[in-house]
């Protein structure tokens, strides 16, 4: 299980945002933001819908470039993967989806199928290998997306609300997978608006509201003594807009 753990956490470069902001048609979706994500912990990006969680993840992963400011990794850019809220799977079989990711990252042809099968097994999808990925259930699709990310052996894994459309059993499977990534030494950056999930998973919490980072604190501190009124209301379960 933990065959690949023991990777030194210090190896993973820090992500640095310097005054990074994002505007769309003149509207500020993310206010200028200074942030530093270090170490190999599990960061939960929290906040109500439209707070800018997805946007922040996309900027960090490099899918979007900031309108102003800078997003960069210190030293070198680590291997990364991202799991989306709605998994994007190719119109091929479950196995072919995984082999494809291996082909993209340059794995020799003869190793692709065995590795892909191993990953299917790890994520409980072994019996579904020949099934077209797009007829799998929502939970199975998300597990397949996680298996694909697993094969890329990322140093940093971004997950954008990976459980928001899933039932409890599927949520459990995703959370278990996240823990497995963590044990393997992958840095986790995950967005969620589910407080219970955050309590289960987070080492530290990044709380966003209306395109601003309101708090960035260790999970313990955030849940017991939130500094801002918005975070207090959010934790109480009030409707934060």
């Amino acid at each position, binding site marked *: 299980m933990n065959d690949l753990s023991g990777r030194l956490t210090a190896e993973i470069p820090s992500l640095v945002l310097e005054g990074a902001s994002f505007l769309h048609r003149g509207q500020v979706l993310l206010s200028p933001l200074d942030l530093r994500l270090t170490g190999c912990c599990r960061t939960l990006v929290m906040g109500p819908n439209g707070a800018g969680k997805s946007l922040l993840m996309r900027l960090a992963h490099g*899918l979007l470039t900031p309108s102003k400011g800078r997003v960069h990794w210190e030293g070198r850019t680590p291997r990364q993967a*991202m799991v989306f809220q709605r998994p*994007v799977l*190719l*119109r091929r079989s479950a196995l072919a989806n995984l082999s494809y990711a291996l082909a*993209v*990252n340059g794995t020799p042809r003869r190793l692709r199928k065995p590795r892909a099968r191993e990953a299917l097994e790890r994520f409980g999808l072994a019996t579904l290998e020949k099934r077209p990925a*797009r007829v799998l259930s929502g939970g199975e699709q998300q597990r397949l997306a996680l298996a694909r990310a697993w094969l890329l052996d990322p140093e940093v894994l971004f997950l954008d609300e990976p459980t928001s459309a899933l039932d409890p059993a599927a949520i459990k499977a995703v959370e278990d997978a996240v823990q497995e990534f963590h044990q393997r030494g992958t840095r986790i950056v995950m967005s969620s608006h589910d407080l219970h999930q955050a309590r289960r998973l987070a080492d530290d919490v990044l709380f966003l509201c209306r395109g601003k980072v309101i708090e960035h604190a260790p999970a313990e501190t955030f849940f017991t003594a939130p500094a801002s009124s918005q975070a207090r209301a959010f934790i109480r379960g009030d409707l934060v807009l």
Partner: protein
Amino acid sequence: MSDDANAFQTALALILGRDPDLVGIVMLSLQVSLSAVLIAALIGLPLGAALALWRFPGHGVIVVILNALMGLPPVVAGLSVYLLLSRAGPLGELGLLFTPGAMIIAQIILVLPIIAALARQQVEELFQEYREQLTSLGLSRLRMIPTLLWDARLGLVTVVLAGFGRASAEVGAVMIVGGNIDGVTRVMTTAIVLETSKGNLPLALGLGLVLLSLVALVNAGAYLMSETARRRLG
């Protein structure tokens, strides 16, 4: 009326008896149209995908031109190729005029815009869906093209079929650059025109029936193929 019925019977007899003239014409038609569609697809599918993935100055102009060329009158395409290939034309040296080669070139010009323009639409739609995931996997745009073309394959079959429909049905272009020479460049559509004007309705009708059934057959095959694939792939 009895004349028509007679023509119909004779037509059937020609088809069922595999009349050598008829068979020769049918084979040449298939050879010309299928070659044209194949070459147009090899160029048009990647071209359409490239137009879907890249934005550059003049992109809109190219898309509009391509869409407009979908309606290019076959006689105009034929005339242009005729001018290019005629003895005095820039490519006259090749001696291609009035050969099947010239007919293939003319049909490529007719089919290419259809395949490229429709492929662009299909790929663009898929690109919207795949973009973030493929970028996240670290693919360059160039490397996305084969992936997108393969994953859009169900829709692209229909696109190529539309191209085949146009190629096999047109008469103007092959008439002008082929010349409808018996045994050399006579295809189904040009033969139908000729036989009709000669009053040889049975052969014209027979050819018409064969043409119709071929197009129907190809479409039915493609439909079955894509339906089973659709059901399998979800």
